[in-house]
């Protein structure tokens, strides 16, 4: 089963980040790298990425065949997606166990979402 572990950035997580020392921030980054290594080694990692600031986002829509893009948002958004792990593991229990090792779970919370698939092996 595939699960997406979502890391959201919000005012609370930001506040925690601001209070961290440089050493703590390094530790945080190392936690992510080591989790990625662990997941790759166990054969459970599909992909993991951190996302650039939402100010660099483009919004895309197509109207009457024309592609329209807009920038932003430039104003601070309260909550945005900061990164994710897409894993393929045995069960929701295992996905939760993995999510609990995401550094962000120690200060805020991360979200685990099952991925829809073409099968029905869902018990």
């Amino acid at each position, binding site marked *: 089963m595939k699960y997406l572990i979502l890391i959201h950035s919000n005012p609370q997580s930001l506040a925690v980040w601001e209070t961290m020392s440089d050493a703590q921030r390094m530790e945080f980054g190392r936690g992510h790298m080591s989790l990625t290594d662990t997941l790759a*080694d*166990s*054969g*459970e990692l599909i992909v993991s990425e951190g996302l650039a600031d939402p100010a660099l986002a483009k919004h895309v829509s197509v109207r009457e065949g024309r592609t329209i893009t807009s920038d932003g948002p430039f104003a601070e958004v309260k909550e945005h997606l900061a990164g994710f792990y897409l894993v393929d593991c*045995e069960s929701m229990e295992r996905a939760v166990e993995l999510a609990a090792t995401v550094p962000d779970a120690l200060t805020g919370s991360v979200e685990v979402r099952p991925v829809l*698939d073409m099968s*029905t092996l869902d*018990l």
Partner: protein
Amino acid sequence: MTTAARVEELLRDLAPQVLAILVRQQGDFGVSEDAVQEALLAAATQWPADGVPDNPKGWLITVASRRRIELWRNESARRRREELAARQAPPAPDPASDVDDTLTLLLLCCHPSLTAVSQVALTLRAVGGLNTAEIARAFLVPEATVGQRISRAKRRIKANGAEFRMPPPEELSDRLAAVLHVLYLIFNEGYTASSGSALLRVELSAEAIRLTRQLRDRLPDDGEVAGLLALMLLTDARRPARTRPDGTLVPLAEQDRSSWDAAAIAEGVALISEALATAAVGPYQLQAAISAVHDEAARADETDWRQILGLYELLQSIAPGPMVTLNRIVAVAMVRGPHEALQQLAAAAAGPAADPALAGHHRVEAVRAHLLDMAGDHEAARAHYRLAARTTLSLPERRYLESRAGRPRPDAADAVDGDAGDESGRRVLGSGREDDVRSEVGVREVLE
């Protein structure tokens, strides 16, 4: 058949034989398996262009042995020491070698120290002769993920001291059960992934049937091996009728039965009839028997639901599980009417006698919706279909349940008690798919 396809077929047959010979001669399953993979890849590129050598098996053994020495030379010093130690203590020869090589390989690949996904990946590569890229495409995961699963599985086999030899007789039945389970998982992965985008995927169902046939050649008297092969054939026979061109699923009751594969049904029915008459009964045989009853009905309303109910009751007594419970309740509705089935469902899903695995499960809502439809309460049925659609993890099932939730009121004839109309109770289980069996396996995985 094209030359490339003929070569591929030949290579897939030879893969486990060559691997078994290498492991027997030189030990170390992990390195031998890598060497055989590389020999297979070399053959797959060279043979279609240069022609198949006179002795293809000998060619593969020679190339794989050379490659194995190179791999061995490239290993680290630590690894070399291990290798030398291993060479000094060659594994004891296995007396039953010639006949049972493929079986021995299957048992090793499905070793109990491995996770299910690793067992599946290793079996497909070492016994099925698929390469890592093909396995990755089949399971829609990156190649690196599959490669990692395989090398991890091999490390674990080594760490556990598992050897390329038949397990002692007292372990054989448990180990064989693991093999059957892995073959079943492979079959279902191929069977349920039937969307248009699956064209690029390796035919996993066909591969599972091929491997199960090989297993049956080696264990012709085992009722559960025969039962599993029959189950696969009887299920796969319905594949042509199972999806519409747009990929949506067709419930069993609405399938065009004339497009079912009659030869596969005949073979499956013969297999299961013989197994039930001669071997000790087991869950795969019962599931195959249920499948056979469906396949033998020329029209949905000719389905012998009394027999299906009896088989589910038997299945519940030897291999109980939440999906068996739900399927049995659907059969109850077809035989004794939806009201009794609704009462049984209520008791199974909540209250003192409830099965905890069914609490909050979307299939309970799907079955309830179906039973309410049968009982004539269409409005309540739609609400429960919607509820079920929200909580399923399967995309085709969600589409199906949503379409039921939005479906206009069916004919009054549909809402009569018992087996009236052309309504097949099975349609509620996984969109009327024949995969109730798959779910039972899934349940066993969780509960055991």
